[in-house]
């Protein structure tokens, strides 16, 4: 776990990595390790202090972050726009539910162990991505953006009509996650106490979400730094030149799409567990746009940025709603004024426009600049 935090401060801007590493020197590295350990310690003890509200919100943020990590590789690294990310999230969410749930009234279920069900759900999302690669790998970025719109609307249509799978528009409850010997739901009578804090569903899910997000982050970072990432950046930069220097363009675009759909599937599993009950309405065009907002606000192509963007986009509406009384101009739904949801949407739209105009690197670039400033000051003193 501390490994994640140590590295999470590094390489916010993957394109620029490696150029200044030697110059940073030993002092810079020490500062990095220190900062990393602080972050790691903080995230590990948060459930001991934070309210339920924040823990539950965080689970949604983790789910969003995992899916956003996939999209940042596809859109940020390979330059392939996707407006269909929510479709693969839905495949993951419903795949998990279908495979892990028992058959109920009018719904079908396979009742597999949750771990197996989630692995299979991710593979299922990957398969869905693979089936779309004949289109995804041949189209250039911008065409793909519109073509993937079809996935979202088609997928939602299927969900609304396949009642046995989705429970129709009323939705379907999601079985809780569990690993052999440990349950992540609130078990009556056998509550786990850690340092005197009762560990119930939200606390347990925090660690689950954290672990999955950390693993997803590390994998995506090594992909971006590795051969595939370099090839995708070459394709993004200039497809023809990438082909000339020997990158199999079509195949690698397919890989990127497959990878991003599997990430979306994993994010979908987490999202389903976080919700506890999923309805087809969730997985529409708005959700697909939300993922795009996350990766743009975080900084296209940056895995650390994707996590920051996911946290921001997921949490802002809930936070605005919670503190609606103390924010001037905000009103709860039903009252006169701008509702928190509307305010959050306006903020997202404005943030995307402003960032792309003035700071296309997004939060990652801003963070990188702050980090450089701090390092410079440390070195000087």
């Amino acid at each position, binding site marked *: 776990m501390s490994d994640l935090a140590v590295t999470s401060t590094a390489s916010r801007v993957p394109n620029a990595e490696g150029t200044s590493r030697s110059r940073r020197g030993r002092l810079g590295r020490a500062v990095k390790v220190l900062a990393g350990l602080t972050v790691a310690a903080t995230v590990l003890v948060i459930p001991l202090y934070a309210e339920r509200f924040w823990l539950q919100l965080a689970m949604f943020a983790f789910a969003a972050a995992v899916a956003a990590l996939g999209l940042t590789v596809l859109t940020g690294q390979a330059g392939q726009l996707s407006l269909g990310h929510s479709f693969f999230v839905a495949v993951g969410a419903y795949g998990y539910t279908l495979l892990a749930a028992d058959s109920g009234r009018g719904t079908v279920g396979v009742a597999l162990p949750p771990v197996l069900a989630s692995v299979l759900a991710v593979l299922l999302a990957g398969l869905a991505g693979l089936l779309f690669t004949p289109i995804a790998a041949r189209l250039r970025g911008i065409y793909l953006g*519109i073509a993937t*719109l079809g996935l979202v609307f088609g997928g939602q249509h299927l969900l609304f009509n396949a009642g046995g799978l989705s429970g129709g528009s009323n939705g379907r409850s999601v079985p809780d996650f569990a690993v052999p010997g440990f349950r992540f739901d609130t078990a009556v009578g056998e509550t786990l106490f850690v340092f005197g804090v009762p560990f119930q569903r939200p606390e347990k899910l925090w660690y689950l979400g954290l672990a999955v997000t950390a693993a997803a982050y590390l994998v995506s970072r090594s992909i971006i730094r590795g051969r595939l990432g370099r090839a995708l950046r070459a394709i993004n930069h200039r497809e023809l030149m990438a082909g000339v220097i020997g990158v199999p363009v079509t195949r690698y675009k397919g890989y990127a799409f497959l990878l991003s759909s599997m990430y979306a599937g994993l994010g979908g599993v987490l999202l389903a567990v976080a919700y506890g009950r999923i309805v087809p309405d969730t997985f529409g065009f708005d959700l697909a746009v939300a993922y795009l907002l996350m990766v743009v606000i975080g900084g296209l192509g940056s895995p650390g940025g994707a996590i920051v963007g996911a946290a921001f986009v997921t949490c802002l509406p809930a936070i605005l709603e919670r503190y609606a009384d103390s924010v001037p101009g905000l009103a709860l739904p039903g009252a006169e004024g701008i509702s928190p949801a509307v305010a959050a949407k306006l903020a997202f739209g404005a943030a995307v426009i402003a960032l792309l105009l003035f700071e296309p690197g997004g939060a990652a670039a801003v963070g990188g600049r702050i980090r450089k400033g701090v390092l410079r000051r440390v070195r000087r003193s």
Partner: protein
Amino acid sequence: MTQFLQLLVGGLSLGAVYALLALGFVVVFRASGVVNFAHPALVLIGAYVTARLALPGSLPFVVALLCGVGAAVLAALAVQRLLVYPMAGKSIIAVSIMTIGVDIVANTEIIRRLGVDALLPMRDPWGNGVVHVAGLTVPQTRLAALTVAVALIAVIFAWFRFSIWGIAMRSVADDPPTAALMGVRRAAVAALAWTLAGVLAAVAGLFLTVFPTPGVAPVTAAAALRAFPAAIIGGLDSTSGAIVGGLIVGVAEVLTQGYADDLFLLGQGFHTVVPYVVMVAVLLVRPAGLFGTRELHRV
């Protein structure tokens, strides 16, 4: 047979409206290389302003419509001048994502203004009147949509063909650097394209919100979104493709809606998905659309 003909007329009329939208979309893409995801927002802005100003006892409908067109054009020009123009040279993906941001802001604001009902009826002169022609019963609004759209498309194509600005637009679409070297003012051409897109969006917005739909509502944006598959089917850089794509999408949508009882296997509300299904099918065979320029690279 009567039912089929009736649906066909309805489909062609809706298709003509989609064609207007797709045409505006394609014109913008050709002139400034941007996929304008804010196009549905322009539709909403035009329709909203028209419906707001056409309330009984205020402005005559034609004046209200002109104001709606003006509002959509102003919005389009603002997006082009203030947001897209400064981004020249940046990646097309970034600019297109920015227009998504514009779409979110405009959509959210207009839907908020629609209030709790989320519906603003369009007080157009046609209402729900129908016309009987050769045994067919067709709503007046559909005939009006068809007539206006065909007239507009004819005027615009003639203008592309013969006017000096039309030639400038075609030359920019063909080869931007050469056009610039020949003295074509690309900034002016881009502004003109966005203006045209605003006009077309507002007119299409009017016909997307009259009978048989209840009025300006959040679903209007979803309907406008179906112009994207229309443009892709025709080929993103082909104006005549946009017309063909729009007609295909409109006819397919109305036919599946009309024969929904026979197609119950495909599920309820399949007609809203049909445009996307057709698009994916076309893309499988022709990745650049029916009339789009195919890029050939040999490596």
